[in-house]
């Protein structure tokens, strides 16, 4: 990383820096550091003549380190990789270091994908992503990049156990739940047969028993049933079992209401009073922050026509 000023650097003496011309009263005044301004002045000058060289590559690294959000710099750097026929593994090394501090930045992940796509080899990626997820287990960029890598390089085989490792650490990690759904249902050669559905349903039930208040596992369970066209009514014995264990999770009560609603619609009769009572209990006792919602839900149920 260069720290000397460019003006005193003999390597740059042939370049005439171009300052930013922002008029007299910009809406967004420049509040850049001197170091950043100078680097940008030189970048402007070389970009103007489309210079593709090692020194520009280093200049972009310097700028990215100060401001990783500038999309044009990244695009320029990508054009340099081609022009200089760079060893793309060196570029991955560069990103490895950068990501340690800036893994929340969009551009870094996007750049990584561009490089890996050019390279046509994803063998370093899972380890790279694992590290980011270890630092922040719900990093949205990391999980969505993981989906791309798994798909692009056909790396499905170990994903289910990776999800389970993550859920063992944090059963409430919704990103891991979402990844499970992706791994189970989006794999191109996946056979979604009865045994798969059964496995997923049983898995979520097990997780719900461990943490009945965890919305992630309830959402997953209901999502799987919907995806596979299974009726929520199949959940009745499970819900009863939870009730017998004195579990009073709002998710349990809300799912019970769903069952009553289905029954009423299917049998074309009005809603069982038990469902209305559950709405009242949720509103007053088990989920009071959503009392208005449960009131609204109650009126919805009462409106089911006979």
């Amino acid at each position, binding site marked *: 990383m260069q720290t000397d000023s460019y003006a005193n650097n003999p390597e740059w003496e042939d370049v005439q820096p171009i300052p930013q*011309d922002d008029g007299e009263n910009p809406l967004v005044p420049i509040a850049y550091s001197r170091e950043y301004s100078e680097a940008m002045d030189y970048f402007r000058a070389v970009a103007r003549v489309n210079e593709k060289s090692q020194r520009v590559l280093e200049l972009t690294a310097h700028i990215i380190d100060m401001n990783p959000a500038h999309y044009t710099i990244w695009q320029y750097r990508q054009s340099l990789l081609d022009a200089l026929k760079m060893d793309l593994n060196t570029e991955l090394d560069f990103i490895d270091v950068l990501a340690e501090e800036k893994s929340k930045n969009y551009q870094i992940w996007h750049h990584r994908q561009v490089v890996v796509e050019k390279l046509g080899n994803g063998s370093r990626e899972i380890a790279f992503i694992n590290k980011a997820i270890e630092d922040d287990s719900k990093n949205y960029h990391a999980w969505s990049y993981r989906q791309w890598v798994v798909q692009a390089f056909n790396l499905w085989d170990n994903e289910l156990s990776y999800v389970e490792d993550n859920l063992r650490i944090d059963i409430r990690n919704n990103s891991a739940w979402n990844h499970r759904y992706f791994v189970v249902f989006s794999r191109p050669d996946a056979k979604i047969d009865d045994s798969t559905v059964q496995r997923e349903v049983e898995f979520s039930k097990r997780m719900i028993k461990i943490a009945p208040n965890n919305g992630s596992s309830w959402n997953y369970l209901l999502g799987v049933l919907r995806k596979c066209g299974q009726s929520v009514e199949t959940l009745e014995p499970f819900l009863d079992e939870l009730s017998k264990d004195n579990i009073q999770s709002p998710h349990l009560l809300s799912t019970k209401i769903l069952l009553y609603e289905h029954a009423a619609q299917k049998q074309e009769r009005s809603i069982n009073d038990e469902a209305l009572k559950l709405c009242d209990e949720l509103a007053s006792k088990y989920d009071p922050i959503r009392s208005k919602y449960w009131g609204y839900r109650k009126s919805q149920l009462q409106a089911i026509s006979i």
Partner: protein
Amino acid sequence: MTLAFFCLGSLSLLGQLDSAVSEKDRKEWIDWIYAQQVLPDPEDLDKSRYTCGFKGSSWAGHSYDPQATSTKYDPNDTASIPNTYTALANLLLLGDDLSRVNTKAIATMLKHLQQEDGSYAPTYGSSETDIRFVFCACVISHILDDWSGVDIDRATAFIRNSQSYENAMGQSPEGEAHGGSTFCGVAALTLMGKLKEGLVDRDELIKWCLARQISGFQGRPNKKEDTCYCFWIGGALQNLGAFHLVNDANLRSFLMSTQTIRGGFGKDSESPPDVLHSYMGLATLSLMKEPGLTELDTALNIPIAGVNHLRKLRGHQ
């Protein structure tokens, strides 16, 4: 450009924009915004059709010219969809008549940035496509009253496909459901008039949004509450006609806890204030009809003064 929007937007919500900004600043800021417009290059129409619109700053060093009618094509000096959205919003808030906006060039740029699957790339040459830019493209088309840059059926299909098993939107298909993406998807459908076609299950989506309330709102299940998600999810609920189901007493007390003694809002009670969360905090209070704040259009995410100004420009009240 986006930071400027949060500042101008906050002032507008506070009803202070006209008194806080002098006539001289107003004129010069409008000029500065126009100086960020990338226009077609008559000598290189072919390439410049991808690059028109507004950029975030004059970083590329071309000379300052708010009255330009063309821009010399430079592959490193391109507009972006998010900056075009916030530039237009800023112009409306500052009371400009949009007469220097090259509508046709912007619609052409949008058309070329829309992908096969209906999503948008933010800028030419980027493959970072997702639901945020679909939303921005819809706002831009609404403001310009020109939808020729949006294939509405494809954009609707993309948003529909972005709803996960949780019935809320992720950044793109298969992505985890997320408050920001959900705001973008619902607002885009609202602007396209496609709420019915684009939602997999409206009731379940409303339920998901309401379930995100702790006191403030979290952006995803089991995450911490954060001022910005109070607006993203509150705004989605407003567009779905269900904001009245929010627990406003709790929401208000959360927002008050994120306000700092120096003024402004942080993302939570421990964080320092910043312009994004300050705007989001005010915008949420505006949804709750807090006295002293003006209204806000939640489909466009623009304070009502800007939207009223647009209506006047378009000749309807």
